[in-house]
């Protein structure tokens, strides 16, 4: 509980307008706080953590608030620490192709800034206009372009992390190659804020592609075997798509008006190479598949629509239907089974499903909408499907009430003792994002 004493202590650390008492009784997604604080400097973040940690208060951390439905069995902590006001570019050296940013910076703000230098961060997260870089890194968000460019663990080269006791620990550095000591960056990427508050992030950049195109190959007959043959042929060829994402009919329909399974291939390179790769696809196209080639502008708008298709807890209005979203990891080609089986749940449980999966990187995502009970049933089934292929499923989005009824992260891994050991070393009092992560860490 945040009593009068804690309030006045916080007021000594921050200005009045950086502290906000949340009177709302209940947040449908949980992960909130009795008091929201908005630090504007790293010193302030550190001071709040130090105070909370030494006074047995708990802290939830938030950036843009797009992922409130991702993990967490606490409706409220004492403090909700928002990084919304800790934003901006700290350093950008165009010649080194690296950028250092504050954690609360919305992803698109950084991309817009970098575009002036023909550079970009090679990540493609959901809701990029709202999601902060800190939240993206903490949740290890990636999108279809992971096939071409890798994920957060490949892009992040340095971090500053505020530990629960207030000390600031740097990991990595500002150079693209670095093996001095343990690769501690990896520890914080995807840690869901359970180890520290990542305050500053240094990333390596890529040049903006000189040319880009989107090739949509759709399969009106929906035969998974056909899709697989094409995907395997592409993977075994010399062409280098940066996405090879399969969309289910509902999602393809929403994004491109094609009501059948559709493979979205993106090419980014110099123009001659892009044209060559388009031709290549034309030449190996199966007889009963349809092909559409889209220009750079169309490709950009297609993907930007795509990044808005999953639930967003920062949206102003609550959705009319209950929503859930699961992230599934499997070996590449098992994605076809996962998506096919998930599709059967539409009729079986009277839900709507949008799903997509990267046939070159092994991650897929299933978004379910419908009546609360049906959605919960479908989510449980999706997990079964994932596990039956030897993969895993984690719940990326659900309301707080629903999360209590399902294990968000699935069974604990056999090496859970190591995860627990790490948490205990860094955050022994469980101050940060309590119960947000695997096994209630």
């Amino acid at each position, binding site marked *: 509980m945040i009593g009068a004493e804690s309030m006045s202590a916080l007021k000594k650390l921050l200005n009045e307008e950086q502290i906000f008492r949340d009177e709302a009784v209940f947040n449908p997604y949980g992960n909130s706080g009795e008091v929201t604080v908005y630090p504007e400097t790293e010193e302030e973040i550190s001071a709040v953590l130090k105070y909370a940690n030494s006074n047995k208060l708990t802290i939830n951390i938030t950036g843009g608030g797009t992922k409130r439905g991702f993990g967490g069995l606490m409706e409220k902590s004492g403090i909700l620490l928002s990084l919304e006001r800790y934003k901006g570019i700290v350093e950008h050296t165009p010649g080194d192709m690296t950028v250092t940013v504050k954690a609360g910076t919305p992803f698109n703000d950084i991309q817009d800034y970098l575009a002036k230098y023909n550079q970009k961060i090679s990540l493609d997260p959901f809701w990029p206009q709202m999601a902060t870089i800190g939240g993206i890194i903490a949740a290890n968000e990636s999108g279809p372009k992971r096939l071409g460019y890798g994920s957060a663990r490949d892009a992040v080269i340095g971090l500053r992390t505020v530990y629960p006791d207030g*000390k600031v620990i740097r990991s990595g550095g500002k150079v693209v*190659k670095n093996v001095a000591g343990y690769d501690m960056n990896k520890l914080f990427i995807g840690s869901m804020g359970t180890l520290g508050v990542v305050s500053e992030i240094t990333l390596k950049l890529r040049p903006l592609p000189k040319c880009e195109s989107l090739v949509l190959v759709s399969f009106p007959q929906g035969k998974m075997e056909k899709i697989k043959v094409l995907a395997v042929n592409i993977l075994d060829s010399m062409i280098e798509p940066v996405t090879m994402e399969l969309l289910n009919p509902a999602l393809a329909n929403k994004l491109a008006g094609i009501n059948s399974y559709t493979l979205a291939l993106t090419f980014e390179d110099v123009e001659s190479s892009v044209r060559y790769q388009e031709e290549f696809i034309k030449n190996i196209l199966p007889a009963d598949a349809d092909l559409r080639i889209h220009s750079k502008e169309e490709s950009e708008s297609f993907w930007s629509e795509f990044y808005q298709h999953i639930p967003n807890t920062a949206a102003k209005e609550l959705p009319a239907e209950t929503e859930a979203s699961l992230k599934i990891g499997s070996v590449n080609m098992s994605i076809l089974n996962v998506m096919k089986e998930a599709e059967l749940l539409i009729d079986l449980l009277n839900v709507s499903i949008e799903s997509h999966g990267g046939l070159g990187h092994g991650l897929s995502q299933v978004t379910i909408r419908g009546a609360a009970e049906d959605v919960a049933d479908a989510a449980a089934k999706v997990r079964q499907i994932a596990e039956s292929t030897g993969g895993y499923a984690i719940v990326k989005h659900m309301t707080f009430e629903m999360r209590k009824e399902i294990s968000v992260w699935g069974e604990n891994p056999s090496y859970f003792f190591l995860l627990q050991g790490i948490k205990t070393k860094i955050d022994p009092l469980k101050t940060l994002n309590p119960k947000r992560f695997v096994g209630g860490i």
Partner: protein
Amino acid sequence: MKAKNQIKSTDKHIVNLAEIVGGARSILYLKEDLVAYDCDGFTIHKHLPKAVVFPKNTQEVAEVVQYCSENNLPFLARGAGTGLSGGAIPLNGEIIISMVRMKKLISVDLENRRAVVEPGFVNLMLTNSISDKGYYYAPDPSSQYCCTIGGNVAENAGGAHCLKYGVTTNHILGLEVVMPNGEIVEVGKDGIPDAPGYDLLGLITGSEGTLGIVTKITVRILKNPEGKQTVLAYFDRVEDGSQAVSDIISAGIVPAALEMMDKTAIEGVEAAAFPVGHPKDIEAVLLIEVDGIAAGIDEQINQILEVCRKRNVREVRAAKNEEERARWWANRKTGFGAMGAISPDYLVQDGVIPRSKLPEVLSKINQISEEFGLRIANIFHAGDGNLHPLVLFDARIPGESKKALEAGSQCLKVCADVGGTITGEHGVGIEKREEMRFVFSEEEIAAQTDIREVFNPYNFLNAGKLFPSPGRCVEIKKELKAQAKIG
């Protein structure tokens, strides 16, 4: 036959360990056999192990480890022993667990683009095993013809082509690890990405064999690029060469490799086994490789030629054919060893700097060379700012080894001071323990040893590596220097 497989030692640990690994053929314990294991590629520091065991499978590794930990015997893993920072040196008279008999290619799954190997499998063998199908394994340390993938994982090894494709950690999908208490743990099951939980895969990769012993590795394999072209450029001024590097990158080209050698290095490679006729009076040579879709390569090569010309290049041209390209690379990849042709001894350093600081750092390295009266050759992965200053010295001259170590350390200080780091691919090992303080605070080092404690609480596994030991550091430095004199 049987007698040959019998142990002649009365030391009960030797007898028991021999039993675990299957007899005398799988263990070395006599002094004359052990001397080959008293150091690795970092030869300035030496110590004899208690024994070397050669397990055949994970189970034997686990049993050896369990035995060692129950009997308070320090132990460590060793691959090919090519490490350049002393990671495999048995500082504490360790039991060395050699991985060289665990050298199978377990499986290749082209459809899902991955392969599973045992840790003793040699890096280049993987590419050789899959190249007929058009695939390869990207991380290509210059030692790839003999170093093991297990050693690569431990050091998070890099190579010339890591500029575009990333270092080892970017290609590791799964690991089976024997924990320091003998427990077997599998992370990244089946190579499936983003396993829920902290990224142990990322943490163990690059931990220099201090968190566990890797017994199985799932790696990503890539399709060969359709086209490839290499450009060679000679510059009369290092500044022009450095500037060309920046210009190429700024032009939005992502070369597969971008390597540079300076005048002293050129003298070395031209005197060694693979000379290609680089002019002796040139200040810098750049080797730039572009790969990808064949249709797009010419455009990029033309752009590179143009950039070099703008920066006053003396001569620039693309390789005429694959044979010439291969010769240029053999000349570069054997660069370290080539120093043997112009100096009795050399010390390889491994600093990293922001690319834009290249001219400034090179001139400071020159100053260090003059101050110490030792020649320093520079071979580097210029594209990612990874410098390898090679300090040339003669260990027979009293005090010169010590001077070389100090000069090397000074080079790293320069790198750290411009915002870089002390090692880009060779690891900290014994060699750069103290230099860790150039980049990390006491608290930050403690944050790392905290992690070690979770995995390796009693520190029987590869103790004394990677971190400066608080309080003892002055002593160690003295000891190191004394050893340097002898070595």
